């Protein structure tokens, strides 16, 4: 396998507030390879979005980020702010969940694309216009030349997300961080946007980190999946293997709580309880209080993420006892 393009080493994001310190991202280690689509899944509040924002250093005070974000040989966390601005939007781009608010309502779409082009490329004048048209065409917006002068409110939700993608891709980034890009869209548009992202990934040779809580989206798009819980990565596996046999009790719980289209009907199993308070994590496995497999060992010590095969990592003591049906196999 080739060298990873992005390496997160012990990434830790803590929000210091009056009510205590909340560790939103707790020692995340992760590698991303060129041309790969990595899914980052987990419940709301598990630290997926904060992880993405930490990579680009978008976390505002009182949040602090420590550890290492190694991007093409440089640690992004130690770059100066002007150097960081050259990385943002040029080498690494990001798209958001809410296409309704992610575009500036008072500027025409074309102007918003042009602004990025002026900032990050050497293009000027006519060639900026040409490139903007090209980008809108690339993301599948019909009659792009006419749409350049349109304002965001004249675009539908799906088209805004396309426009957002066009802006994010304006300077040919090597990595696209997609923060739940399809959550706010209806299902048919979701599918179009995901296909678009995959197609663009191939044509432009990007890597993508796709944050989502929709396992269907993961199955459809991602090559590898990292599962987050309470700010940590609890399992990393190729998507196919993960869906075939989860190796973390939490992943199993997630899979059991999703209805499978076409499969035999069975009751949906919810994961009981709620995610833990990030300011007061239990000493053992953070999932232990909600887990059906919990033993004394789980509560006593916190399992770390360890390799169980060439391609898989898990932080579950009972990883070999899990079966697809959610029954304990002992």
């Amino acid at each position, binding site marked *: 396998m080739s060298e990873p393009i992005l390496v997160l080493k012990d990434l830790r994001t803590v929000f210091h507030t009056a009510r205590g310190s909340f560790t939103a991202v707790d020692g995340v280690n992760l590698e991303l390879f060129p041309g790969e689509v990595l899914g980052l899944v987990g419940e709301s509040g598990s630290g997926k979005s904060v992880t993405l924002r930490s990579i680009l250093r978008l976390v505002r005070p009182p949040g602090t980020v420590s550890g290492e974000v190694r991007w093409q040989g440089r640690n992004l966390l130690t770059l100066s702010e002007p150097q*960081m601005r050259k990385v*943002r939007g040029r080498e690494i781009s990001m798209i958001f969940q809410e296409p309704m608010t992610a575009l500036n309502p008072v500027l025409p779409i074309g102007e918003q694309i042009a602004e990025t082009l002026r900032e990050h490329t050497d293009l000027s004048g006519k060639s900026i216009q040409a490139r903007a048209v090209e980008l809108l065409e690339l993301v599948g917006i019909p009659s792009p030349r006419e749409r350049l002068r349109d304002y965001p409110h004249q675009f539908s939700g799906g088209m805004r997300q396309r426009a957002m993608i066009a802006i994010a891709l304006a300077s040919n980034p090597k990595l696209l961080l997609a923060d739940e890009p399809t959550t706010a869209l209806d299902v048919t548009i979701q599918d179009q946007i995901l296909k678009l992202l995959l197609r663009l990934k191939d044509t432009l040779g990007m890597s993508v980190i796709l944050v989502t809580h929709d396992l269907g989206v993961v199955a459809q798009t991602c090559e590898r999946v990292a599962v987050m819980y309470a700010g940590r990565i609890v399992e990393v596996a190729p998507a196919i293997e993960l869906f075939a046999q989860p190796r973390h009790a939490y992943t199993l719980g997630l899979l059991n709580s999703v209805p499978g289209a076409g499969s035999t009907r069975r009751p949906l199993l919810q994961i009981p309880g709620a995610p833990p308070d990030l300011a007061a994590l239990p000493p053992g496995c953070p999932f232990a209080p909600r887990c059906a497999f919990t033993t004394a060992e789980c509560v006593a010590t916190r399992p770390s993420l360890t390799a169980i095969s060439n391609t898989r990592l898990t932080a579950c003591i009972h990883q070999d006892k899990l079966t697809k049906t959610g029954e304990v196999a002992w």
Partner: protein
Amino acid sequence: MATPAVIVPKPKAARRRLKPSLVAGMVIIGIFVLMALFPKLIAPYSPTAFDYQAILQGPTAKHLFGTDNFGRDVFSRVVWGAQLDMQIALFTTLFPFLFGTLIGSLTGYYGRWADALFGRIVDIVVTFPFLVLVIAIVAVLGPGLKNMYIAVSAVGWITYGRLLRAEVLNQKKAEYALAGRVMGYTSSRIIFRHLLPNAITPAIVYWMTDMALGILLGSSLGYLGLGAQPPTAEWGVLIADGKNFLATAWWISTFPGLAITLAGVGFSLLGDGLADLLRPRE
């Protein structure tokens, strides 16, 4: 047989109809601005020319608004007063608008200590009644227009600062602000190019109202002898001039008073219309 499809030409992109209030406001303020710019063309007499042959005359064709106790033509004085009062409207609000917008945007965006400091200044200023504070400052600096501008500006920017701060705080949460950072834009570009145009509408609308308040304030201070000094034609001064003759020559105070009222209404209509025009479309 199917009838051939009739191709209906698409109506031209519907232009937004201007609201009547905006048009009315523009007309009223437009007239006052014309008076302010070309008083010589509009006023039949000099505002300070005495005419002892025509003292305290009621409105006639010759003297549209009558004459005062020195025989000065009240209509001419109201027209010349427009020049000064439009100037007052602008100068008592322009600096507060600009400075308050700047400070409000910065504190709203950066927050933390700048915001805390701004909050304390606001707390201090709002404790005092506006007029009392302005009069106190003018009393220290001495009466006159320039000192009045200084006094009003020193206090008035606070309101704009608060408006902008609140609105920028609000806009900052929208993802396009975050998107700007993701795109590697500088903070100043995000604040002034992206957030400010989205946040400034309430301040512009308030500015219009504030101009009306500025005229009232200028007139009040003129009336009290702290603003424009007689024999300058200023609406507040004109009202003060006529107050001793209210029972016998009502026109001396009434017409400048109507001018103040009309200007106030004009600015309010303008603000109302602008609020509608600048409202973000969804």
